[in-house]
C-alpha cells in the first residue's frame, strides 16, 4: 500500500511539451508511472516522448479519452492557477502542481474551486510525490528511495531527499514521500498527509519536516497528539533564520509568535513527537522510535 498515488494511478501531464514537462515526464515514465496523456492547448492530436504519449488540447478531452484520475502540472506561474482550475473542473481527483512562483491571489481563488469540486491538490511549488516502486509524480530523484515502511512528508524538496537518504543509511525504506510545498497557500496540509499515513496499513512510522512560518506544523502536531498511533519523528528548518526575512520559500517568513522554529519544536515535543534538534538525527531517531514500540 501507499498513499495518494499507486500503480493504478492514470496520470496526465499539463504542460507536457515544455522543456521541464517533457524532461520530467520521461523520468516519470522511466520510473514506472502510468502517464497516459499530455495537455498543451494548440498541440492536440500530436504525440510526444518517442511518439508514445498523445497530446490533447484540454484536460477535459484528455480525461474523457484516457479516463485519467491524476494530473501533474508543469506550466509557467502565470498560467498555473488556471491549469489547476481546469483540471478540477474536468473531474481529476488528484492534482500535483510543481510550478514555483504562483501569485498568492490566484491560488486563493483556485483553492475555492478545489473545495467546491472536492479535488485534492498537492503544491504548488513542491517536488511532488513518490509511492516507492509504484508511481513517481514530480521531480524527486527516484533512485534514492527504497521500498519500506516509513512515510515522509515535507515542505521542502532537498530536505525530503536528505531525510530519505538518512532513512536509507539506517536501513529504512519508504512507503510514500510527499513534498507538500512551502507557499503561503497550499492544497494539502501536513495534518492531512499525517491522516493518510495513519490510515495506510503498510506505513509503520512517519517523518515530518517543517519550516519556519505559518501554523501548519502546529496544527499537524496537535492532531497527531490525539489521533496518531504510529511513531512520528519531526524536524523544523530555520532555527537560525533572522526574523522577517524571506528564505526562498514564500512561506518561510518568521513573523513572530508561534511560527518560529523554537515554538514549533516545543509544540511538537508537547504533542509526543520525537523532535530532532539536528537535521542529522532524523534517520537514527526514526530507527530508535520503531525499536521502542
Amino acid at each position: 500500500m501507499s498513499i495518494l498515488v499507486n500503480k493504478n494511478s492514470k496520470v496526465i501531464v499539463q504542460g507536457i511539451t515544455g522543456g521541464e514537462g517533457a524532461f520530467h515526464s520521461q523520468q516519470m515514465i522511466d520510473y514506472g508511472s502510468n502517464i497516459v496523456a499530455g495537455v498543451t492547448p494548440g498541440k492536440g492530436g500530436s504525440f510526444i516522448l518517442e511518439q508514445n504519449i498523445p497530446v490533447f488540447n484540454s484536460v477535459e478531452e484528455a480525461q474523457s479519452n484516457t479516463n485519467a484520475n491524476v494530473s501533474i502540472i508543469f506550466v509557467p506561474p502565470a498560467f498555473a492557477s488556471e491549469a489547476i482550475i481546469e483540471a478540477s473542473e474536468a473531474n481529476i481527483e488528484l492534482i500535483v502542481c510543481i510550478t514555483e512562483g504562483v501569485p498568492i491571489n490566484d491560488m486563493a481563488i483556485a483553492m475555492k474551486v478545489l473545495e467546491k469540486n472536492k479535488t485534492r491538490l498537492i503544491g504548488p511549488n513542491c517536488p511532488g510525490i513518490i509511492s516507492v516502486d509504484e508511481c513517481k509524480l514530480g521531480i524527486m530523484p527516484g533512485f534514492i528511495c527504497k521500498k519500506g515502511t516509513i512515510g515522509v512528508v515535507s515542505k521542502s524538496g532537498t530536505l525530503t531527499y536528505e531525510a530519505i537518504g538518512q532513512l536509507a543509511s539506517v536501513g529504512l525504506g519508504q512507503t510514500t514521500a510527499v513534498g507538500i510545498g512551502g507557499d503561503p497557500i497550499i492544497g494539502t496540509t501536513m495534518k492531512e498527509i499525517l491522516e493518510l499515513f495513519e490510515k495506510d496499513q503498510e506505513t509503520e512510522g512517519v517523518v515530518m519536516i517543517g519550516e519556519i512560518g505559518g501554523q501548519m506544523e502546529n496544527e499537524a502536531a496537535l492532531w497527531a497528539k490525539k489521533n496518531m498511533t504510529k511513531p512520528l519523528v519531526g524536524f523544523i528548518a530555520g532555527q537560525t533564520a533572522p526574523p522577517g526575512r524571506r528564505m526562498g520559500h514564500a512561506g518561510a517568513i518568521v513573523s513572530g509568535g508561534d511560527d518560529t522554529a523554537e515554538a514549533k519544536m516545543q509544540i511538537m515535543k508537547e504533542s509526543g513527537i520525537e523532535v530532532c534538534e539536528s537535521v542529522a538525527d532524523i534517520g537514527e531517531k526514526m530507527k530508535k522510535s520503531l525499536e521502542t514500540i
Partner: protein
Amino acid sequence: MKIHEYQGKEIFKSFNIPVPIGYAVNKLDDVEKVIKKVQNESKKDAVVVKAQIHAGGRGKGGGVKFSSGLSTAVNNANKIFGMNLVTHQTGERGQKVRKILIEEASNISKEFYCAITLDRSLGQFVFMVSTEGGMEIEKVAEETPEKIVKVWIDPLIGMKSFHARKLAFGLQLTGSAYKEAVNLFLNLFKCFIRTDASLAEINPLVLTNDNKIVALDCKLNFDGNALYRQKDILSLRDTNEEDPTELEADKFDLNYIKLDGNVGCMVNGAGLAMATMDIIKISGGEPANFLDVGGTASADTVKNGFKIILSDKNVKAILINIFGGIVRCDRVANGVVEAVKELGLDVPVVVRLEGTNSEEAKEILARSKLSIIPASDMKDAALKVVKSI
C-alpha cells in the same frame, strides 16, 4: 516587495483613499520650497517631516518630527535628511535616509488601526480594524483581542458593503465619518487586490477634528510572485534599501541573505539551506549567509555563488552542501574545482555531495589535488567546517 510611505500614498490617492497633503523631497535644496507648498495648499503652518525608509519604527528612532512652522520644519528636515536611522527593524547598522516626506499636520481626534492580509489557514483575506490605533497592534491582539474587529473575505466573492459596514460600526463611527470609512475600506480592498498586495496597513487611520477620515500612514507590501503583472509597482522598487550583496546575487538568480557569522554556505534548496545553517550553529559555528543555488546548479552558478560568499569579508570557511536530484553532483564538483582554481581561495572549503552522480563528483574532487575537505554527511560537514576555522 516593499515600497516607501510616500509611494504608497500616491497609490492610495489613485484609489480615492484620503491622505494628508504632502510631497516627497530627495535633495535638501528643495526642502524650503516644498514646505511652503504644503503650507499653502493645506492653509496650515504646521507640518510633519517623515524619514522615508522601508523599515518600521521610524517615529521612535527619531525619523518623524512634528514642526509648528517653517523654521522648525527646515531644521527638522536638515536633521533627518541623510541621518542613519536605527529602528528595531533596521538592526544596529541602521538605514541612511535618502528621502523625506513633508506633510500637513493633521488635527487628530481619534487614532485607529486598519489592515488587510491573507489568513493562510483559511485561504481567505482578513480585514482588521481597531479603535486602538497608533500603538503596536501585536500588543492589542495579545492583551485586548476583543478590541480588534475582523471580517473574512472570500476571494471568489470579494468585499461587500456589509463587510465594510461591520468594520465602520466596529470603530463606533457615525454620520459622515461612518460613510467615509465605509468607502475607504471598500477602496482599500480594491487597492489590495488590484496591486497584488500581500499586506496593506494603515496605522494610524485617523478621525480629524473636522470629522474627516484620513490615512495618516501607509504600509504596502506586494506579492513577489505577482510582480510580473504589476509593472507600475515594480518600478517603485528602491534598491538603496536593499543589501548590495543580495542585489548582486539576485542578478545571478541566486537566493542569498547575508547574516552575521563567519561560515559561508552554499546549498541547493531553501529547506536544506536553512537546515545547513542550523547544523553549523549546533556544531558551534555561526552561519555567514543563506544561499540557495536552486534546482539547476551548474558550474557557473557555483562560481558566482563563491564570488558572492567571498565578498563578505567575515567569511573564514565555506561549506558546500548539495543533495543532487535534478542537480548533478559531478557538475557541481567541476564548478567547485574551476572556481577554486580561478579565484584562488584562501579559506578552507568543506564539500558534501550526495545524490545524483555523487561518486563521480567525489573522484573529481580527489583528482583535483586541491585542498578541498570532503565530508560524508551533514554532521561530518558541519563539524569539519567549524573545526577548520
